[in-house]
């Protein structure tokens, strides 16, 4: 080994799976030296959601600047990097392809190993950045605009999925409800903000149970109930109290997410719980999970909002453990839009 294990590992990571162009430099998997995110949210707001073609075009315009800023922010040069990492799925195919082609060309020209990273593994790994004591195994709830998964993180890069959504992702339900009450896009932060002034018990919405698997989720019934409520109110000319509606809807989502996660940790016998993904920065979810874990005697871990949103630091963290395992991608690495968790 010639003491290779002791050498510092610097990873330049690139992420472009949706509407953020991001690059970061991560040292030894847990120290973020730079974390640059160029967000396109303002651009997509006028379309009521992310437009894939526009996102892809913006990625190509921004990506070199973002990467150069990440290297500059870390005060390092490309030649100082140990490896190049990139998100290759899941996500918007056109958006992913920009990052993948760019990362491959950089790795090739700079003669660095290339590591393809699963976007969701990245989100889970975001928990390692600010929690130096956190190590697998633990239970992790992954909630974002495109994903709702309950997983057991058995080891670095090793996951068992124990629950998933049968229909809408949690974040998707937030977006649709926000749009219906005129709060606009992106729905998650808008609902979160509106709910702070509302009464979570004002309206009662259903908490769906999914028959055969106690850890699966379903949000389409809840979403429909909220939309029906809005339609009914509109027809009868009744005024909707948006903060109350936002708080009641959010409460229904949070209750389901928290109860399943805590039940899973108890059932499978794990003492640590983490959350990940864009919706993990929802303040009501964080508070409720914190309380439930405390009551159940579980340790609770969560990333700062900047590491919950799509970012490249989490990709660099996930890539570090892949790098240590000797995982390398070839020059034919392709983007995979519907890449499943645990699939390589």
């Amino acid at each position: 080994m010639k003491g290779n294990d002791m050498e510092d590992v610097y990873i330049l990571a690139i992420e472009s799976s949706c509407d953020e162009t991001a690059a970061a430099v991560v040292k030894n998997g847990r120290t973020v030296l730079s974390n640059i995110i160029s967000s396109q949210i303002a651009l997509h707001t006028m379309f009521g959601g992310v437009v894939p073609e526009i996102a892809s075009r913006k990625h190509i315009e921004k990506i070199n600047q973002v990467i150069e800023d990440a290297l500059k922010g870390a005060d390092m040069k490309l030649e100082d990097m140990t490896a190049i990492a990139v998100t290759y799925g899941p996500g918007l195919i056109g958006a992913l392809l920009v990052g993948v082609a760019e990362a491959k060309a950089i790795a090739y020209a700079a003669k660095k190993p290339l590591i393809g990273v699963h976007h969701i593994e990245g989100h889970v790994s975001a928990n390692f950045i600010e929690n130096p004591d956190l190590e697998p195994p633990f239970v992790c709830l992954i909630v974002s605009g495109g994903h709702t998964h309950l997983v057991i993180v058995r080891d670095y890069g090793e996951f068992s999925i124990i629950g998933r959504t049968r229909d809408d992702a949690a974040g998707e339900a937030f977006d649709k409800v926000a749009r219906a009450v005129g709060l606009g896009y992106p729905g998650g932060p808008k609902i979160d903000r509106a709910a702070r002034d509302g009464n979570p018990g004002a309206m009662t919405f259903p908490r769906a149970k999914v028959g055969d698997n106690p850890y699966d989720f379903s949000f389409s019934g809840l979403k429909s109930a909220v939309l029906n409520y809005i339609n009914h109110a509109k027809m009868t000319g009744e005024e909707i109290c948006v903060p109350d509606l936002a708080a009641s809807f959010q409460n229904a989502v949070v209750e389901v997410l928290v109860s399943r996660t805590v039940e899973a940790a108890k059932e499978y016998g794990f003492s640590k719980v983490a959350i990940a993904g864009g919706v993990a920065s929802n303040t009501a979810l964080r508070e409720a999970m914190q309380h439930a874990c405390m009551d159940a005697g579980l340790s609770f871990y969560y990333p700062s909002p900047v590491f919950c949103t799509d970012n490249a630091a989490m990709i660099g963290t996930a890539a570090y453990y892949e790098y240590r395992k000797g995982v390398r991608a070839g020059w034919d690495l392709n983007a995979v839009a519907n890449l499943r968790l645990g699939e390589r």
Partner: protein
Amino acid sequence: MKILGIESASLVASVAVVTDDTVMAEYTANLKKTHSQTLLPMIDEMMRLLEMDISEIDAIAVSGGPGSFTGLRIGSATAKGLGLALGKPLIHVPTMDAMAYCLYGSSSLICPLLDARRSQVYTGLYRFENSFEVVKEQWAADLHKLIEELNARGEKVIFLGDGVPVNQHILEEEMKVPFQIAPAHVNRQRAAAVASLGAVYYRQGRIETAAEHKPDYLRKSQAEREREVAERQGELEKLAAGIVVVEH
């Protein structure tokens, strides 16, 4: 002066290394495999064959569009990544220019056609007098209108590109001036032409940094086209609510 040419605007994946007067290597494949899986392995293989290190390249010429949006971005991101890592400039070569350059010295008006679907083609008009001349810069055209324009010009025309076979019956029916179709070895995009014309543009100072480079799509995204319609009809709020606005 060594120039790496990259071409991935449509189905053709092509890479080449061109010095001042020699194509040192060119690798072209015309198959339905994503450029994401072919382009960089092709560059790698070509470099191995040449026993050349990628850092010996002086500039990267990339076929800058129009073409398939995704195809263009794979070529563009590859060129940008190489340019960033090597600290070398990029040369943006319009795709139609590079295609026309394949027919260097032709006495006819050169008209590349790239299938743009939606009953359109990407095209441009070129000729050789004493040198390569852009008669009309590349644009997205309705094929029937393009043919009208060619008929009005009254010159002999030579066509090339993947827009030819799919529209051959229309060309045969509507073209009133004599026309030819380029033979197989020069009737699609080639990276050697991108690099070779790239060298000419390089000498004219038409270079850009890897960060500056972006493809020239010649067409807006569908969402932006819908937005323009919505703006005209005063229905922007529908669009923001995620409702598709159709022209009426």
